[in-house]
Structure formats: structure tokens, C-alpha cells
């Protein structure tokens, strides 16, 4: 697990991200995520849609910001992170697409605030899988799906530009 500062909302504490492979209880976790179960203390993300850690950190920062402003669209800050990863305002669709599915075996668990050790314990308790590192997951990015979800221009091929496009679309979602 890695922990990062949320520079734009420092009072929210750190954001903790852990990667798991060989996950066995995806189906049950998916149900809880999509129901925005408040007892689910972590966000769960389909790891093959994460091109770069930056994407996840931006989603977490936005969630922390909206929580502070009392403007969360979902029931919890952790579900909000998953929702923020998507370019659309449709909550159910966003959680379905960027959250995990029944067949998920690799996922990323994410949580804002709290002590790292306690958070990791909670994550390990929730996810039945093997803890791994982000670099081991990276190869599995599903670019075709990302391109479809974000309607990325075919002329944009460079990884950094693809990421810019995704971040730009995420940023615009709460701008009326």
C-alpha cells in the first residue's frame, strides 16, 4: 500500500492506495459498492482502467474537496472517488464502469484519511486477495475501453496525451 498527500485539501489527510490480485470476493464487494454501502470503508476500482496513479489521485482530491464543501454526489467519499473517475454524471453507470465487476480479479482499493496501518488492516480484511504493487498492475491497462468511455480522439496516441484527455474530462464533470 502507498500513501499520498492530498495537497489541495491537506486537512483531509492522506490518500491510501493498495493493489490486489487474485481477488476472490469481487462479486460481493461489487454489490456493496454499487449500493453505496456506507459500511464499505474503501473505494474499489477496476485496475485495468487506471492508466496512471495521477488519475486516481485526482479523483480522490476531487472527492475530498467535495466532501469538505458538503457536495458529494454519492453516499460516501470512497464511492465518490470511483464516481469521479468517470466522465459522465450518471452515478450508477460510473460506479458500474469504474468500480469492480463480478469477474474482477485485480483491483485497487482506495481510502482517504486515517492511519496507514489501520487502513491497510481494513483493506486486507475487506478484500480477499494478494497485495501487490501498482507497477505490477500497469501492463493490464484496457486502453480500448478507456478510449470508448472518454471518446478519445483517434489522433491522440501518446500515453501522456491520453492521460491529459482523461484528466481534462474528469475535471469538467462538475463544471456546469
Amino acid at each position, binding site marked *: 500500500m502507498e500513501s*499520498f*498527500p*492530498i*495537497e*489541495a485539501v*491537506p486537512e483531509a489527510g492522506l490518500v491510501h492506495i493498495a493493489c490486489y490480485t487474485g481477488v476472490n470476493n469481487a462479486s460481493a464487494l461489487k454489490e456493496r459498492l454499487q449500493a453505496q454501502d456506507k459500511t464499505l470503508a474503501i473505494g474499489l476500482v477496476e485496475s485495468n482502467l487506471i492508466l496512471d*496513479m*495521477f488519475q486516481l*489521485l*485526482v479523483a480522490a*482530491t*476531487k472527492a475530498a*474537496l467535495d466532501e469538505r*464543501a458538503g457536495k458529494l454526489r454519492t453516499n460516501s467519499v470512497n464511492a465518490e472517488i470511483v464516481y469521479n473517475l468517470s466522465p459522465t454524471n450518471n452515478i450508477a453507470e460510473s460506479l458500474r464502469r469504474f468500480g469492480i465487476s463480478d469477474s474482477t480479479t485485480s483491483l485497487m482499493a482506495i481510502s482517504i484519511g486515517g492511519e496507514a496501518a489501520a487502513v491497510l488492516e481494513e483493506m486486507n480484511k475487506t478484500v480477499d486477495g494478494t497485495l501487490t504493487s501498482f507497477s505490477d498492475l500497469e501492463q493490464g491497462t484496457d486502453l480500448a475501453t478507456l478510449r470508448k468511455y472518454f471518446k478519445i*480522439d483517434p*489522433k*491522440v496516441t501518446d500515453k501522456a496525451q491520453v492521460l*491529459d*484527455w482523461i*484528466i*481534462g*474530462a474528469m*475535471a*469538467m464533470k*462538475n*463544471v*456546469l
Partner: protein
Amino acid sequence: MAVHQGTLIKQGAEARVYIAPFCGRKAIVKERFAKAYRHPALDKKLTSRRVTQEARCLNRCQKALIDTPTVYMVDVASSLIYMELIDGLSVREYMETDEGSTQAARTHIAEEIGRALGKMHNIDVVHGDLTTSNLLMRNNDSKSVVLIDFGLSYVSNLVEDKAVDLYVLERAFSSTHPNTEVMFEQILASYGTSCKASKQILKKLEEVRLRGRKRSMLG
């Protein structure tokens, strides 16, 4: 509200610009602040309108593959926009360097500016504040011109608005960089080849210029 861990790099007329850490990167944070001289209701309306307009126009440009900073996050409540930090000098600064004073460099800048503006007008984005301080030279091999500071930008398909956009730049050019008429002609030439409606817009520009002279009719 201060930007956390931010280093102030520019105190503009209505925004402070910081470099601040953001999600592990260095980002530009643009903070609009209240203007004491403005009626509070008017101030609030203008500020939030401009924050969203700016983000929206930047994103519209990005989607049209026009070189602009990527918007990372918009915090309307605090009037903040987090965006990509571009490495490079402003065209204004660059033109004052030895390299930027050469004929070849200026021709290149002019072509780049014309192309960028042409593409921007193709998607109906009107910048609203084109000056040589609001154009950056990306510090890489491409030396492409990056359009920044969309604080006064808006979406419009009117030929008039696009012509005025060019007129604003023309005057910024002549007042900031005397004796650059040739360069501005090169910008317009390049604009002419990249902007679809350039014929009408350039014709309108002539009209706007004349109006500018007529405007001082009365004492």
C-alpha cells in the same frame, strides 16, 4: 484563501497564479479573488462565470487538439483552477531574447500563433484577451505555441467576435512590440490558411480597425 504550499508566480489584475504541488505533480493554480471596487453581487457573478468559462474553453480546445494546458481540477467554490504547468517562456519574453529576435524565430512564432488561433476560432472559442503574455512557447523540440489565460474567453460563432479577438492581439502587438507590423501580417497569413471562415473574419477585421479610428470622432 491561500493556495496550500503554493509559490506565487504572478499577481494579475484579477487572479493570482501559483505553482503548487498537486497529486504528485507541479501544477499551476489560478486563484481569482474578489475585487473590492465591484459590487459584491456583480463580483460574485463575474468571478464564478469566469472560472467556469475558462475551464470550459480550455477543455474545448484540448478536445480539438489545440495546445492548451490540461485542466486538472476546478474548485468553483474557492474560485480555483488547477492546471498543467507548461515549461516555456511567454512569446513576449521570448521575443526579447536573442534567439527570439531573429527573423527565422519570429516567422516560426508568427506561423504557430496564426495556426493556433485559426484552430481555436474553428471551434468557436474566442479568447478575449490575446496578448503576447498569454501565448507561451513550449520548451521542447516542437516549440509549439500554447494558448493560456482563458479567463475572458467565451464560445461564439460570430465573425465580429473573432475579428475583435484578432484586433485585440494586433493592438497588443503594436503597443508592446513596436515595429512588428510584418510579423502580424505573417500571423494573419498563417491564420488565413488554418481558419475555415478566415476570409470573412479578416474582412471584418478591416472594418473593426476602421471603426477604431472612427471612434475618436467626438472630443
